[in-house]
């Protein structure tokens, strides 16, 4: 119910903003109208007509690229909107995205009804014909003079725009061979290899661009690598093998060359060889660490980044990034102070934990200190409101699909206590703090066993959904609790609107206004239904 109310409120505001946009559009105030459309669609993204009109408004201001993206979004939301798809294709062509234009015209001419089919077909023929003519022209030029890198590059670009990736890869490769210092060609080569489905070839090209190129090329290659799943491959380099036999290059030179060409197994071998002869070589330590990192062996990479971190800022930064996962110990602190109107009191839950990493595959031991406290009014039942410090030792499992298990022995009020549990947290959509507004859904599910509560098993699922607007999330929350213990406080269902704010220092402030009902009335003195407004602050830090 509250969720529905929240949706209606957001859509009403969205419609109001869109109405303003249309009024401005009628007056020819294109720029202001575009701004209003943008805001209105952030609140009501599924408003089809408004998105199309937004795109046409953008065209009035000459913003063809932005209009193109809006038509794409409209077509994505409604694949049968052939007009939007055609507009998208034409604007792709207008904004120099010829390959995408050609591809979209081909799709529309194949799938759409008339008259879209004919329009798309004619446009496709024009675009494809010009590409074919250009390819033929440059092929003739290359037949005469095969030594011009720019001609090879031009031909490769035309072939890529025509989705002829084999031809494109051949000529990007030829251009690169003629102009090896132009690393952008390797990037293009990786791109067309990826399009061909040659993952390993693409990965090798991207790694070469990432490591051998200028900052821009390297950064774009890293980005491409992030999208290209690769496989490890032991590859021989004939040129290197010949030089090895001739003894012309040092181990570190061989390693660097292998690394630049993305022959990572060779690179590792040569870096290790270099370290044997010069154990404190920072270049060799750093090179080996990078190589191991690319090979996905992060634990080993962490060790070698650590060895090089004093002399190399890059190693230091990489070591810090890998540390939480691979350090021998990892401290974590979290705290949740909270005020509840239902219980007329404040509570705080928290834990300080040191995890150890002895290298076991599935579990890690830890020591922890849990603390629970309240504001003094004991209105809430004991398990929710108490004052205790609980030192404990335990183990945690590796997280798989968001699920983590734990088991610990603790001591509370001089009594030994055993606890265990599993929990899962998953998030979808726009996370709190992201700049792009959007919908989100998050779920936290846990099952806990506590010896001191009569060996009870406590189950809890908390689901949140709504809309993220930068540092604010508005939406609804539902929480369901169940237990083998029949007590009222452990068995409940509640739901209501929720708002969360991201504050500085990674602090999250949340307020949930819920309507709840106990599913069991055992030991319940009052009514089964209740209202509760809970305001809490969440803070967690891992070093």
């Amino acid at each position, binding site marked *: 119910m509250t969720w529905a109310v929240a949706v209606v409120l957001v859509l009403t505001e969205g419609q109001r903003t869109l109405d303003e946009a249309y009024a401005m559009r009628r007056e*020819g105030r*294109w*720029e202001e109208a575009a701004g209003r459309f943008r805001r209105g669609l952030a609140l009501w993204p599924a408003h089809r007509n408004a998105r199309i009109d937004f795109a*046409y408004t953008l*065209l*009035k*201001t*000459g*913003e*063809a690229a932005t209009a193109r993206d809006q038509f794409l979004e409209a077509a994505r939301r409604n694949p049968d909107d052939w007009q939007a798809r055609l507009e998208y294709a034409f604007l792709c062509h*207008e904004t120099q995205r010829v390959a995408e234009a050609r591809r979209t015209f081909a799709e529309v001419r194949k799938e759409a009804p008339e008259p879209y089919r004919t329009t798309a077909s004619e446009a496709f023929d024009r675009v494809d014909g010009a590409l074919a003519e*250009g390819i033929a*022209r*440059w092929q*003739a*030029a*290359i037949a*005469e*003079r095969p030594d*011009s890198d*720019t*001609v090879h590059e031009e031909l490769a670009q035309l072939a890529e725009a025509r989705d002829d990736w084999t031809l494109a890869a051949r000529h990007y490769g030829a251009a690169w061979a003629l102009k090896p210092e132009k690393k952008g060609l390797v990037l293009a080569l990786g791109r067309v290899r990826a399009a061909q489905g040659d993952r390993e070839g693409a990965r090798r090209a991207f790694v070469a661009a990432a490591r051998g190129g*200028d*900052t*821009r*090329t*390297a*950064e*774009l290659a890293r980005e491409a690598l992030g999208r290209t799943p690769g496989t490890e491959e032991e590859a021989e380099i004939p040129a290197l093998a010949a030089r090895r036999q001739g003894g012309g290059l040092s181990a570190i030179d061989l390693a660097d060359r292998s690394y630049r060409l993305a022959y990572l197994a060779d690179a590792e071998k040569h870096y290790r060889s270099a370290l044997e002869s010069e154990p404190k070589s920072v270049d060799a330590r750093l090179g080996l660490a990078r190589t191991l990192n690319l090979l996905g062996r992060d634990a080993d990479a962490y060790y070698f980044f650590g060895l090089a971190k004093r002399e190399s*800022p*890059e190693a*230091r*930064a990489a070591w*810090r990034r890998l540390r939480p996962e691979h350090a021998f110990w990892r401290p974590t602190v979290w705290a949740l102070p909270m005020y509840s109107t239902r219980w007329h009191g404040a509570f705080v839950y928290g834990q300080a934990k040191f995890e150890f990493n002895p290298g076991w595959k599935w579990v890690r031991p830890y020591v922890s200190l849990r603390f629970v406290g309240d504001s003094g009014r004991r209105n809430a039942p004991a398990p929710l409101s108490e004052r205790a410090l609980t030192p404990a030792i335990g183990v945690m499992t590796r997280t798989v699909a968001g699920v983590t298990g734990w088991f610990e022995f603790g001591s509370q009020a001089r009594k030994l206590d055993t606890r265990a549990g599993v929990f899962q947290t998953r998030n979808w959509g726009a996370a709190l703090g992201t*700049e792009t507004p959007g919908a989100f859904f998050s779920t936290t599910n846990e099952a806990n066993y506590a010896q001191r509560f009569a060996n009870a098993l406590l189950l809890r699922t908390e689901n949140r959904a709504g809309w993220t607007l930068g540092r604010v999330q508005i939406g609804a929350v539902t929480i369901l609790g169940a237990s083998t213990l029949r007590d009222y406080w452990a068995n409940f269902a509640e739901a209501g609107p929720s708002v969360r704010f991201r504050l*500085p*220092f990674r602090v999250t402030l949340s307020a949930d206004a819920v309507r709840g009902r106990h599913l069991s009335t055992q030991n319940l003195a009052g009514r089964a239904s209740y209202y509760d407004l809970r305001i809490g602050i969440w803070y967690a830090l891992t070093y």
Partner: protein
Amino acid sequence: MPLLTSALWLALDPLAAAGLPAGEIDRVTGASGEVRATRERVTVRRIVDTRWPEAGIFWQKPVEIARYELPADARIFARERWTGAPVMAGWKRNGRPVLWTATGWGERGYDRYPYLPQAAFDLGLRPAAEARDLWAFFDSSYRLRADPDYLAQRWRAGGIAAIHVAAWHYDEPDADRDERLASLIAACHRNAVLVYAWLELPHVSEEFWNLRPECREKTALGADAHLDWRRLINLENRACAAEVESRVESLLERFDWDGVNLAELYFESPEGPGNPARFTPMSADVRREFGKSAGVDPIDLFAPGKANAGLLRRFLDYRAKLAQRMQSHWLDVVARRPGLDIALTHVDDRFDRSMRDALGADAAAALPLLDRRDFTFLIEDPATVWHLGPQRYPEIAARYRELTPHHSRLGVDINVVERYQDVYPTKRQTGAELFSLVHLASQAFARVALYFENSILAPDWPLLAASAAHATVTRTGDGLRVESARDVCIRWDGAAKVNGAEWPLTDGRYVRLPAGTHTVEAGKRLPLRVIDLNAVPVGAAADESGVEIEYESRGRGIVMLSDGRIERLAAGRHKVYFAAATTGGS
């Protein structure tokens, strides 16, 4: 206290290059005062600016920084690409803007944060002066469905005096297309923007290429010269040239042009004779003419194993003279139509000496044409120097001043494009880099043109006009003292007196001043004002009965009056009077 000065060193300060009063903002770097460094470290190679998130902003040298915690009211302008760590932000303290960056700004002022000027603008800084004399190139194929009035207003607000419209799209009459161009020209004139026909001979049009295959230029490999987007025509052939002449004359007659720009009228390509696949001209006419004098077919010079350095030198010299001959001829052709201001856009071959042999472009040979014909010689800096900094413009200007006494006829064409070189922080000039280029170029040359209006990113338009202005503006009590070597617009709200007399050249937000030193103070509202003038103001006077202005204009000018009248002005130096009633000018 000076709000703005035009000293050269200010070009190094990105805020001053954008015409902003750089002294009116506090600059903070790294951990300082309210900014706290956390223990987290971030290596910055790429940043994302909220103003234009899709612009790829890369730092040439990666820098490791702390992740900083900023004041709660900080407005974050840019973040590191991967971690989201803030790298540029701003806030206000005691009414004064504070601009914070995680690192220094870099040697050239724009190495790391291209949008520093825009951030300062967002924090409340405003330029004191703006220019109104920029030119920009325009290609309608990028703006097919744009509202002409919207574009014209935006151009004029950005300081554009004239748009050079890609005219080859209109070579072949077509009712719809022609109507769109006529409507664009009318919209420009309504907004005091002049319109020039931009020709790219020897490219004529796609239609002509298809219609007259026998007129196609050839490359040194004997192929048709379709190079990049240009389809080159053999203008050395008399029959083909005559047909093109009649098409150009028809094009100039069909529309209400204010001028014509003959651009890049020489040969291909920047790779020169090293790449025969792109080398022109090699038509039968050229081969015959050169063969007669040299006794050798020039195409043989490009055959494998037949290189002859001496003969190639001779052919390159012949080719440069041929280009100069063509320029002279086509200047005569376009000058047949009276009333058109003329520009010749010519690639620089003084700063980059390779251009003469690469393209046949010889500025030293073309500049004497200014002795017999009045036109603007617009120097285009070649692609090979696009990566060099803005200081190249004073250097280029100095080299051309040595070659001609017509300094006021020299202009420069800044190519705002994705550069092929490894340049930082952005591939295309934007923000502080663009403003630095325009600032120094407009100081060094009488005219600055921008190629092209579509490649100027949206965040750059609000400060473009200010970056081209050079004036020293000083507060004097309730007024201003302005010194400027060129006419300029000064920010001034309301009616104004200039040098003690009521001043009619004002739109209520700016006053337009002639070159020289002037005082500006509050005046009384006049019944008739000049709200825009596309000409160089020399003087003005006004009373209750009307407005008199003295102006100078190379071609036709435009004046917009506060009562809604828009009048065309004759070329030359004239005084005109506009009565406050509804009668026209005299």
